[in-house]
């Protein structure tokens, strides 16, 4: 859970000079927001102002959205706010941008949309945030209360539609309560296991008069989060770790969300326990460390999958044992006693039985374990075995000069050209897997991807959101696929308008590559609807948007072109024509045995 500065409670006492202050703030906007404690905001007069005030009180600096009829009162109130609103080209982009903002900053990302199509377009991003437990707050306009249920223009049952893909949602029906509903949604998005929340805002409610200031962001009384695990189970788990002969740590996305990477690193290094990450856990442990086995699962490294399969003790932190990680349940770590740390009790023994269920905040519980473990496990032989696997199942690939550029080479070149703290966003498919496998991640919150939902089109809007959350010295690179890029490339207009320094590398094979790879392996090579055969020239297209376009066809262009694109101060797009035959390996087929990963197609 992230720490936030205590929110400011707006006072009811107001001062005469407020209006002048507000005006001067408007005419001379300063980048640094005044410390909220000194600010004397004007009293709210409408529901919409109360909504915006709730965001301001929560410390929100950026919001991503698209205007529209039913949300207009909120946008009108936003007009006077210091919050920087980024007008997106499509609501899906708004929810993905907010999601990435949440991942990189650790604070809820805010997205706004109008009723009906605005709200339904947000759904993909909300479902993504729900699957990946990313903190997002969505504010949607709604038709006036008296029309609700009458199939009014642009009416959709937004709370109904989003119920299965949000942590919680609210239909806000009281002008005096609407600001507090937003505050509560903000608190719920980040406290405990994070996730997306939504507040549906009928136009009559936001238009209505109210002088009611929103309450501070606080979760409802019925919401309980356990921070510390049961000490008895901690003691038993610690004993298990001490007696392990083949231990591993499996670090999931919860390690990053709980800001527990540091304490997990210390624990692993102190006790010399090899570390595997899940895909959302990427960056929780430095991949250049000797103990790092990198990511496991369907396209995880061979050595990570061997270690997972053969370990006798697994300290799994902040992971929900997704099927892309476990492969077939029957063959998942079949000899391992599982120590499972998670803040959500419902994840314990949901997919994989936990021998030592430790419910609590990742950082707190791993600190408890650190306290409780006195002796390191005697695992010299096991560590040597893991190193042996690292060399047996090397990720090395060939780069024959007479074949098109290998995508792995491009990813490595991008990694080489950027700093350790560069943020990588991706779409979904082959390029995503290469970006995951061949970039060496060393820091949390630098890998931003659509894991559980697998939403193509995530990469570009995520790069926009990440750009606002990242520090100025952090490069933001979107490694995209041609198919994924084509789904949301209208976001380039946003990147250009906002002058965002992002670099998009489109690994272009003119295929829906992952589908093509599966068709080759499982459908007799019948490329049904996966073979584009033609793609727009992405560099020229980028130029039309006002971005800088580049193109790579040969190995000798890679380094210089990447350098030029990174140097360009603004959005740039590199259309990289990669080897269309390149496939992602290792690969564990759906429901397969992780230890039996294929290294070539004929092993599938």
């Amino acid at each position: 859970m992230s720490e936030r500065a205590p929110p400011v409670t707006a006072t009811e006492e107001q001062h005469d000079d407020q209006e002048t202050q507000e005006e001067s703030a408007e005419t001379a906007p300063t980048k640094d927001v005044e410390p909220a404690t000194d600010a004397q905001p004007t009293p709210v007069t409408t529901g919409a102002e109360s909504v915006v005030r709730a965001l301001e009180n929560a410390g929100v600096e950026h919001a991503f959205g698209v205007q529209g009829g039913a949300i207009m009162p909120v946008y009108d109130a936003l007009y006077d706010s210091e919050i920087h609103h980024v007008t997106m080209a499509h609501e899906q982009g708004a929810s993905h941008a907010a999601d990435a903002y949440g991942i990189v900053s650790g604070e809820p990302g805010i997205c706004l949309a109008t009723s009906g199509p605005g709200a339904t377009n947000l759904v993909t991003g909300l479902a993504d945030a729900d699957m990946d437990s990313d903190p997002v707050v969505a504010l949607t306009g709604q038709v006036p209360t008296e029309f609700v249920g009458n199939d009014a223009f642009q009416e959709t049952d937004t709370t109904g539609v989003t119920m299965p893909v949000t942590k919680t949602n609210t239909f806000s029906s009281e002008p005096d309560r609407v600001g507090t509903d937003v505050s509560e949604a903000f608190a719920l998005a980040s406290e405990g296991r994070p996730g997306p929340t939504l507040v549906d805002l009928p136009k009559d409610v936001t238009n209505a008069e109210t002088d009611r200031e929103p309450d501070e962001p606080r979760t409802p009384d019925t919401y309980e989060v356990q921070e510390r695990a049961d000490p008895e189970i901690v003691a038993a788990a610690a004993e298990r770790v001490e007696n392990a002969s083949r231990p591993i740590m499996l670090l999931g996305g919860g390690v990053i969300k709980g800001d527990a990477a540091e304490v997990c690193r210390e624990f692993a290094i102190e006790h010399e326990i090899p570390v595997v990450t899940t895909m959302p856990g990427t960056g929780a442990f430095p991949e250049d460390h000797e103990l790092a086995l990198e990511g496991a699962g369907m396209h995880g490294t061979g050595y990570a999958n061997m270690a997972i399969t053969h370990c006798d003790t697994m300290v799994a932190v902040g992971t929900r044992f997704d099927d892309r990680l476990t492969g077939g349940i029957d063959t998942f770590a079949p000899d391992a006693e599982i120590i499972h740390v998670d803040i959500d009790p419902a994840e314990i023994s949901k997919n994989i039985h936990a021998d030592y269920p430790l419910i609590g905040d990742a950082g707190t519980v791993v600190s408890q374990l650190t306290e409780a473990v006195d002796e390191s496990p005697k695992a010299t032989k096991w560590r040597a075995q893991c190193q042996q696997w690292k060399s047996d199942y090397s990720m090395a690939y060939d780069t024959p000069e007479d074949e098109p550029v290998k995508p792995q080479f491009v990813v490595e070149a991008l990694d080489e050209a950027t700093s350790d703290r560069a943020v990588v966003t991706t779409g979904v498919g082959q390029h995503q897997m290469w970006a995951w496998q061949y970039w060496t991640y060393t820091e949390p919150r630098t890998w931003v991807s659509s894991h559980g939902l697998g939403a193509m089109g995530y990469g570009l809007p995520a790069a926009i959101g990440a750009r606002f959350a990242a520090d100025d010295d952090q490069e933001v690179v979107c490694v995209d696929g041609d198919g994924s890029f084509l789904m949301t490339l209208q976001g380039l207009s946003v990147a250009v308008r906002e002058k965002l320094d992002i670099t998009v590398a489109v690994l272009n094979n003119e295929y829906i590559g992952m589908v093509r790879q599966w068709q080759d392996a499982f459908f007799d090579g019948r490329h049904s609807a996966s073979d584009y055969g033609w793609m727009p020239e992405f560099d020229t297209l980028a130029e039309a948007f006002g971005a800088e376009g580049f193109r790579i066809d040969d190995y000798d262009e890679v380094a210089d072109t990447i350098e030029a694109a990174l140097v360009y101060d603004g959005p740039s797009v590199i259309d990289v024509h990669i080897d269309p035959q390149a496939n992602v390996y290792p690969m564990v087929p759906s429901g397969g045995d992780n230890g039996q990963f294929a290294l070539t197609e004929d092993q599938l």
Partner: protein
Amino acid sequence: MTREQGLDGPAPEERPSPAGRRNKQGIRIDPEVEAKHDPRRTVISALVEHEPGVLAEASGLFSRRQFNIESLTVGPTDDDERARITLVVEEPDPGIDQIKKQLRKLIPVIAVRELEPDAMRRELALVKVNAERPDQVAAVADMYDAKTVDSSPETATFEITGARQKIEAAIETFSQFGIREIARTGTTALARGTDDTAAPAPAESTANEANNTPYTQPADDD
């Protein structure tokens, strides 16, 4: 044209493979700890905020997670702001555990508890039968303590309350006369004596039930 793609390394059949296995519930198969998880019927009670949408949220959860729910009832409590949902579910133990934990995660849900096998469970049924043989119908009604709610020359409608088993037995017996229509409420239930059915509990105790739920045997009450 397809060139050879892939990575080097020992092929799958050349690799060591562990002997162990897990079952479908993700539990290691080890003769000493192996427990067979047959579905069992049990009653889960949830105290929830009395507000619109809670029932939709709960029932949406059950359908999308494929939980097997036999009946679901909801009604107000002595507190105007709280309602009680009573569920009869039939699932293996890990499934029952998931139902409880997922239900507890819903924000408007205040407390969730699986009732003891001796909990009081009642259901009400209205049974409309053909009344061509009034004496015999009355005798059956008497046998099941059924109250007459309505009667006409052609039909008689009875109200039967009791545990599910009793209601099913009554319906079966009434069926000899020809049943025209039935409406049943589903089971509602309370814990016995001073035991709370589902009351707010500190987070620790809810959470620590994680894997330590003492599984109870199915009651023969229903």
